[in-house]
Each structure stands twice: as structure tokens, then as C-alpha cells.
């Protein structure tokens, strides 16, 4: 059963992936980390806001979609909220299956959909002062939409 977690705390990537190993032959994962700069401007922090209540439902829905579309044994989505300094982990998406194709594709799907379909917003707080809300990217929408055409891609 998918594990969904929204938390201000850091998470243990090794422990989360070890949990997925049970009964699986392949575990794929994605970890997002706060970078030190954005468009050449040094970042002091990234602040993650979310819509409590709706977030868990959205993440569970994305995970369920992945479980239905690929032959997965399990999957996990963890997303942090609050103020995160550069180098901090933001997100973990991972999927396990008997074979690698399913695990790898489902992981890419989880992170693509998470970016566009889960109610999180990022604010960049700059080292020189000031802040700006990150704008949604057309490329993220395209990455999401590629999963809707003709089911799975080649793998």
C-alpha cells in the first residue's frame, strides 16, 4: 500500500527504499534537493506551502494511479513543507516492482504528476533579500501530459 507523507522533517532515503525491497526485484527512486541558486541568484532558502487536507488526497490519488497503470509492488511519496535551506531534501518518489521497466517509469510518472497535480507552492527566498513565488513551467505540464497519450512509453 502506497506510503504518503507530508512533513516538515527530513526523511531517511535508505530506510524508505529498504521498505520497498520486500517482495520486489526492482526499486527506482527520485530525490529532489534544494539547489543553491535560481537563475543565477543565490538562494537563502526555499519555502514550501501546501493545502492541508487536499495534499494527502492528491498524493494518494497520484500513487493509486501509478499502482493501477504499472505492475508495482508498492510506492512512496514524501514531500517536505516549510523553510528548506540549500542542500535539503524536498521530495522522495519511489516505486518497486518485479521488473525494472515498471519501477523506472512509475517513478518518473510520480514525480511528473506530483509537480503539476499536488497542491504545493514554492517561494524562493534570495540571499540578497527579497523573495519570489516560483512560476509553473510549461515544460512541467508537458512532462505530465506525456503520460496521458497511449498509456506507457517504451521501456
Amino acid at each position: 500500500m502506497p506510503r504518503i507523507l507530508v512533513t516538515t522533517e527530513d526523511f531517511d532515503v535508505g530506510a524508505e527504499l529498504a521498505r520497498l525491497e520486500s517482495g520486489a526485484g526492482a526499486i527506482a527512486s527520485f530525490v529532489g534537493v534544494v539547489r543553491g541558486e535560481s537563475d543565477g541568484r543565490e538562494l537563502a532558502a526555499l519555502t514550501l506551502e501546501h493545502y492541508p487536507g487536499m495534499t494527502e488526497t492528491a498524493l494518494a490519488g497520484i500513487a493509486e494511479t501509478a499502482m493501477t497503470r504499472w505492475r508495482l509492488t508498492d510506492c512512496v511519496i514524501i514531500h517536505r513543507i516549510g523553510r528548506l535551506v540549500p542542500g535539503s531534501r524536498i521530495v522522495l518518489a519511489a516505486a518497486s516492482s518485479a521488473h525494472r521497466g515498471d519501477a523506472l517509469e512509475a517513478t518518473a510518472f510520480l514525480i511528473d504528476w506530483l509537480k503539476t497535480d499536488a497542491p504545493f507552492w514554492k517561494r524562493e527566498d534570495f540571499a540578497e533579500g527579497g523573495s519570489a513565488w516560483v512560476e509553473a513551467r510549461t515544460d512541467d505540464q508537458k512532462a505530465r501530459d506525456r503520460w496521458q497519450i497511449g498509456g506507457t512509453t517504451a521501456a
Partner: protein
Amino acid sequence: MKILYFAWLRERIGHAEEDITPPAEVTTIGALTDYLAARSPAHAKAFADRRAIKIALDQRFVTDGAALGTAREVAYFPPFTGG
């Protein structure tokens, strides 16, 4: 009815939440947005570019034509940027 604002909408309006009872003639999401935009200069500024705003009624996406019905919670926010 609970109104929620997120990200720059929250910042521009100055708070995250409002409890309102819209007038009887406000029966759609579009009318509700017009009503909220007229509440203060800060609201007007926040709602200036409506194409940049997404709306959820009881945590489901809706567009202007949607009926308010017995909605308990309407949320306004920019497109998601998590991950």
C-alpha cells in the same frame, strides 16, 4: 463558507482564510470571485489576473461556471509548483 488563499494570493490579500456568507444572488464560482475581488483594494489586486488563478471547491478543481451549491470551502491559488 470558508475561503482559503495560498501562495501569492495569501500574501497579497494579507491572510490565509476568511469566513464569509455570500449574498443569495452569488450562486456560481465566477460570481463568488467577483464578490471577493470587491471586498478590498488588496483583494482587487490579488484577483487582478484571473487567468493566473486556480480554484478548488471542496478540494476539487472548478471553473467560473460551477454552482456554489452547498460548498463549505473554496480555495484560490496559483498553479502548483511542488516537487
